[in-house]
């Protein structure tokens, strides 16, 4: 390995700067390894272990500072760039000086950011409710990312918010876009006249992404948290958000998204549809179509369909169910035939590994309607609950973002380790034919969802091939061209590895359905 070594004898830098140097140098192209620190015996041993040592480093004392970086290629410029970067970072004013103030309490944050009107709170659930109360009492709207907040606390906070005319988005609210500002997990979508209130994170993301793809835009995206439409909470924030969009002059079309609410809550919400002339699209995923349409709203058959209907209403074009494919029937049949021919006779099952819970839920509902029995950790019926959530059987759809998989660990949309570990297990099963996966882009998500999974997808396919089988991998990227992860590059990476990408979750599921039908025919 080629080295770049910089030694500064009897020189001391504060640890804030050194941590920054380590992080930033590691990110530089062609840098494989880096060690930054004082010349203590252990640090020198570590440098030796990483093949980054030389005689100069061995001669250092603990009071000498050094950086040793391992480079992919030999180039004077690389070394010079690294040293230049180190000096820039060390000399930058980004330290604990007075000019950078990090408030340590809500009180001081409110004083410091006088014009703030929203607090985003992400604390362990045990501590969250108190902070939300403080925020509301300071006149701030709240987005509460935390889960493990009790129902009683949620009700109390939402009532307090409602009485003060403030939003309480959450608990367990992961997605919102307020006045064009994406909060927590959200995609970069066009500004427009479609307002959304959503009780489900990735469901809301899917609808906003479809709206953007169809040329529409969003005015506001208000999250409510997953429990809002249960009978105890009574849909407090769904109703408040709905009211806010009714009153918002920039919103011309309203979309409501949730899993099926409690009956009395659905009634309250649908009764409000009659109070507005604005068209309302309601996707109670798998909910009662007749009830929705009976109250004057537009019912949907999928999240994608909600997006289609919203854009049609926004543009004033005709509204109809979208339940097909963007590609022609010929193209779809060609994909199906081409994949089906490659399978071994024993291969017949689908394994869907989702990071987005609502997308998993939608997949199971769509497949369920066609008569497929899907086992899951979040099954539609108790008899399909997996006995061991770490072991798939028959057709299985896993929500890797569910609490059982994320206790003490980051959400799979941030860190895909759960899916990375699961995929090889599925590829060891000789009866598996199809793997279905989502890749969620946008703020808050992993920097490179496709890239992280890529080597494991390739490995899984090779593994199957070595046993005379074929693994069909179907994917959906929930993202827009504006997202920070570079949507096109994400698509390219996956397609080059043989992943069949579909333009929506619903279409990806429908393709799986067609393929399963073909396999079993």
């Amino acid at each position, binding site marked *: 390995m080629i080295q770049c070594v910089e030694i500064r004898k009897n020189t001391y830098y504060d640890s804030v700067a050194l941590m920054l140097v380590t992080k930033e140098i590691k990110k530089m192209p062609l840098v494989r390894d880096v060690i930054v620190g004082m010349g*203590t015996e252990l640090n020198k041993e570590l440098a030796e272990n990483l093949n980054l040592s030389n005689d100069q480093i061995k001669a250092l004392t603990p009071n000498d500072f050094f950086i040793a970086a391992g480079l992919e290629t030999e180039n004077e410029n690389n070394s010079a760039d690294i040293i230049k970067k180190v000096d820039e970072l060390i000399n930058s004013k980004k330290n604990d000086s007075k000019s950078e103030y990090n408030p*340590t309490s809500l009180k001081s944050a409110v004083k410091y950011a006088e014009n703030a009107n929203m607090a985003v709170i992400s604390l362990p659930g045990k*501590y969250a409710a108190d902070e939300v109360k403080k925020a509301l009492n300071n006149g701030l709207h709240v987005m509460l990312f935390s889960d493990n907040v009790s129902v009683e606390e949620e009700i109390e906070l939402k009532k307090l918010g409602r009485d003060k005319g403030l939003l309480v988005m959450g608990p367990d609210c992961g997605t919102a876009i307020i006045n064009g500002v994406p909060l927590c997990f959200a995609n970069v979508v066009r500004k427009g006249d479609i307002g959304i209130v959503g009780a489900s994170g990735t469901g809301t993301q899917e609808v906003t992404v479809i709206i953007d793809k169809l040329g529409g835009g969003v005015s506001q995206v208000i999250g409510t948290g997953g429990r809002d439409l249960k009978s105890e909470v009574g849909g407090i924030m769904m109703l408040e958000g709905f009211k806010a969009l009714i009153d918002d002059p920039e919103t011309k079309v309203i979309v409501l998204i949730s899993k099926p609410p409690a009956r009395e809550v659905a009634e309250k919400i649908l009764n409000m549809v009659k109070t507005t002339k604005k068209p309302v699209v309601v996707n109670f995923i798998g909910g009662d179509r007749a009830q929705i349409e009976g109250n004057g709203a537009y019912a949907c058959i999928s999240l994608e369909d909600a997006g289609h209907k919203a854009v049609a209403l926004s543009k004033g074009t005709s509204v109809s169910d979208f339940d097909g494919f963007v590609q022609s029937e010929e193209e779809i049949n060609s994909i199906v035939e081409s994949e089906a021919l490659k399978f071994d006779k024993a291969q017949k099952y689908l394994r869907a590994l989702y990071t987005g819970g609502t997308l998993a839920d939608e997949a199971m509902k769509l497949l369920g309607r066609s008569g497929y029995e899907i086992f899951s950790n979040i099954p539609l019926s108790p008899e399909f609950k997996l006995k061991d959530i770490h072991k798939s059987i028959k057709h299985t759809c896993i929500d890797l973002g569910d609490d059982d998989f994320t206790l003490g660990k980051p959400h799979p949309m941030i860190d895909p380790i759960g899916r990375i570990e699961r995929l090889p297990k599925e590829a060891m099963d000789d009866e598996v034919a199809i793997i279905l996966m989502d890749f969620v882009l946008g703020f808050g998500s992993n920097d490179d969802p496709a890239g992280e999974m890529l080597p494991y997808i390739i490995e899984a396919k090779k593994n199957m091939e070595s046993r005379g089988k074929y693994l069909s991998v179907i994917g959906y990227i929930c993202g827009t061209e504006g997202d920070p992860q570079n949507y096109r590059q994400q698509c390219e990476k996956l397609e080059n590895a043989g992943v069949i990408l579909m333009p929506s979750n619903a279409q990806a599921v429908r393709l799986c359905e067609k393929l399963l039908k073909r396999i079993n025919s």
Partner: protein
Amino acid sequence: MEISIICENLMKAINQEKIIIGKVHSVFSNACNIEAGSYFITLLSSSKIISPMSAIISAKKTINFKELGIEQNMSFKFTSEGIYCLEKDIYISLGAPMPWCPNIINKCNDMYTGYLEGNLNKLEAGLMTYGKLQGMGQLMTFLDNDKREMKLYRLWLNNVEDNFYYIKNEFICFMESVIKVDMTQIAVKASKIIGFGIGLTPCVDDFISGLMTINVCMGKQYGVPITKIYGFNTELISLSTSRTTRVSCEMLKHSSLGRTNSAVMNLIQAVLSENTEKNDNMEKFLKDAVNYGETSGTDTILGIYVGLKMWANSNYRRAWLNDTVC
């Protein structure tokens, strides 16, 4: 400019020696370290917390030592009237500063361990919320794997950096020697990990500093002779002081005798004496301590946390108490 708060030990040294002359070892915006023979003295701006052998300077505007033009190797003279930087013609009067005692053992009489279990849970939650776990936090994963009874699983990190794998085994061996209070092995085991990490006080050193400080507190609580505690702590660092930076070496020496900075001291007192269901001081002190350095504060608190977990475990405690039932 004048000294507003001064460590008692520094004041004592100045009064004893009459004049102490030293040279600047290292300068930062808010701190200046001075080597004066066997003394290692730190001058701090008013934005920093007081620590052993240090003094806080107050002035109309918060001091910035770099802006004052202080550089390495400049001379400083300490007398009972004041502190002089000879090259820069800077004078800081000593006046009547508030004395501060760095010894945690002096605060131990007021401690009550009845709330310890609940407070440990709060401390853990606070570490997960406010802690910068990218230093020693990474080794907690390995420690939990090896010592399940300590129940450190909530501090698990999914991605441990490769560098930390390098000392994983040595760290576990060291912890075993700590648990067994192994006087014959502790120095060697510690010498294999002290000095590991970036920064003037490498992360392992900060962790060990927290561990040793808690040994002093909890030893006193459980009636372990203080000579035994000091003996173990000083043996722990005996082979390592030349293997780490001067700043860290001083910190380790102080910690071995239960001397620590005010943020850590306040936190330990809160954990060991407060009913934190009624007061939220512990969270405030935790945040103050975490904000010390980059990961230094968190690493020290992790040492305290792990130390407390060990002392709270009756099986581990036996090693200190020579099998006396407590």
